[in-house]
């Protein structure tokens, strides 16, 4: 279509004013998504709200029916048999597994991005497989292995199992970070008289840190929340999910809700504090300009 510029100019006078349409554009597009997001987040929180609410239930042995509000469950969490012990075990297992898996996985991630070696494809497959293997298979396979090796199941075997399935997740998480790390930075470090070790600790490591922290958090969460693999490999040791599973058969005590709620609230608090500090720092930085 060809329209003469001149003709178009002539139309200018008849062009209607515009503000009304702009208001509409602001309205639906922007708020529609926000409203959806709020609803979605509320939906995600339903079972959490339920869990928190029932941590205040004045229950007896089962915690299914609302029987009234009480703070007792919170005040005497550890009175209920095994809850706290199970929780303690879970924290211990998750911490140790996380440390080991993060160290092993980070090393692999660095090697994968920065070095070309022959078995690269095989290595990648070996790392992908555990993520592609259903937990029942992992749990059952490892359990059989421990059995035939005559290993006594307990904290040790749980940790061994957890490290196994966390490594891959750590590698994926850290790898993305390593790949986005500009090698020129390490070169600049070397150029500025830093020895290889100094380059690693002063440049590579701090720059990977956010990725490593993310990997560690993920690893912790996966370990802390794992039931299936743990169930196959824990022997007599009770972890928090295992406790919940067993307790589910006879009604979960409100103390379990208390623990779960506490973990949740703590996590939220940590994030908020961290973010507020970061925001404050940003603000401070900004104002020095």
């Amino acid at each position, binding site marked *: 279509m060809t329209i003469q510029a001149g003709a178009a100019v002539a139309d200018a006078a008849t062009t209607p004013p515009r503000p009304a349409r702009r208001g509409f554009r602001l309205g639906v597009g922007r708020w529609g998504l926000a409203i959806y997001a709020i609803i979605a987040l509320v939906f995600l929180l339903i079972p959490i709200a339920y869990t928190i609410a029932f941590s205040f239930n004045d229950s007896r042995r089962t915690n299914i029916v609302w029987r009234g509000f009480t703070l007792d469950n919170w005040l005497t969490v550890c009175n209920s048999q095994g809850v706290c012990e199970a929780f303690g075990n879970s924290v211990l297992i998750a911490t140790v597994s996380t440390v080991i898996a993060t160290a092993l996985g980070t090393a692999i991630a660095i090697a994968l991005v920065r070095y*070309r070696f022959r078995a690269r494809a095989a290595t990648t497959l070996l790392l992908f497989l*555990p993520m*592609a293997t259903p937990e029942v298979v992992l749990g059952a*396979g*490892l359990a*059989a292995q421990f059995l035939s090796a005559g290993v006594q199941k307990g904290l040790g075997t749980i940790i061994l199992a957890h490290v196994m399935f966390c490594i891959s997740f750590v590698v994926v998480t850290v790898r*993305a970070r390593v790949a986005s790390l500009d090698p020129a930075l390490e070169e600049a470090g070397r150029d500025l008289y830093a020895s290889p070790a100094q380059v690693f600790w002063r440049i590579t490591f701090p720059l990977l840190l956010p990725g490593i922290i993310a990997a560690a958090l993920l690893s912790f969460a996966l370990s802390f929340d794992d039931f*299936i693999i743990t169930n196959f490999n824990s022997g007599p040791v009770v972890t928090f999910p295992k406790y*919940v599973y067993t307790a589910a058969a006879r009604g979960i005590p409100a103390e379990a809700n208390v623990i779960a709620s506490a973990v949740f609230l703590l996590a939220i608090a940590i*994030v908020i504090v961290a973010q507020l500090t970061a925001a404050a720092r940003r603000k401070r930085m900004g104002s020095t300009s």
Partner: protein
Amino acid sequence: MAFGAFATAAPPTEPAPRRRGLIALWLLLPGLLYLAVFFLAPLIALVMTSLQAPREFGDIGQFDYAFRWENYLEVLDGYWPHVLRSFGYAAAATVLALLFSYPLAYFIGVKLRRYPLWQALALTLVIAPFFISFLLRTLAWKQVLSDEGPLVTALQAFALLPADAHLTGTPFSVIFGLTYNFIPFMCLPIYTSLERLDLRYVEAGADLYAPPASTFWRITLPLSMPGVVSGTLLTFIPAAGDYINASRDFLGSTDTAMIGNVIETNFLVLQNYPAAAALSVVLMAAILILVSVYVKRSGTEDLL
């Protein structure tokens, strides 16, 4: 933000690999050895177990090493509906989780970019389910969805659900549970992709006459594909092997049993280890085949 990093977005520029040799070896060796001992070896043992035969005159749960490949025929014959059902449920849950997560991830990753505090908070709420035990939140849903729970009561009050119908123990509740439980695994990788999405591409699309929907399909979505792919994998794979949601003690019933439940029953109740192992191998193989086809077709092969 913490969990953000697990999208397997192809790195922008894989720097030229330098120096081979010892350092790489030392970095790789501990982790790979670990996986060899605690993942590969059990896997091989599992394959061997899957070929075992019952011990002659043995008690329940006693088997001997053999090469009884009929185990595979038997489990496939007996349980093929469960295999199909598992993949069906997992696929449904994956699609639902994707539909649920994408707009949410988009909102958090793109719209909240300018408000880091809100972004972090919203992200925390997405991963919040991680902090409440998987089992507890599933049980919570079970209570919410139970016949005398608020949802059924309300639906029946509005005659949206027949009076004798229920939600728990149905395929609906199992798929619902799977969807819910894996939403964080879907949402986070997509978020990561979108959070890195360079909005200038979207602007360039608009500049080149693509209306918003077209910009979404041709630019935003393809650019976030790595996140979508890793999200769908992180949802589909564990969902296909899950046995908690479909368990009769949680959201399932007898007609919702998935392959994970079959494996669990054979392993834990019937002490039929070869059958459990054979099923595990079948499940894994099926997943690997599906995943590799999917990854090939979605064009994000550099998965890990």
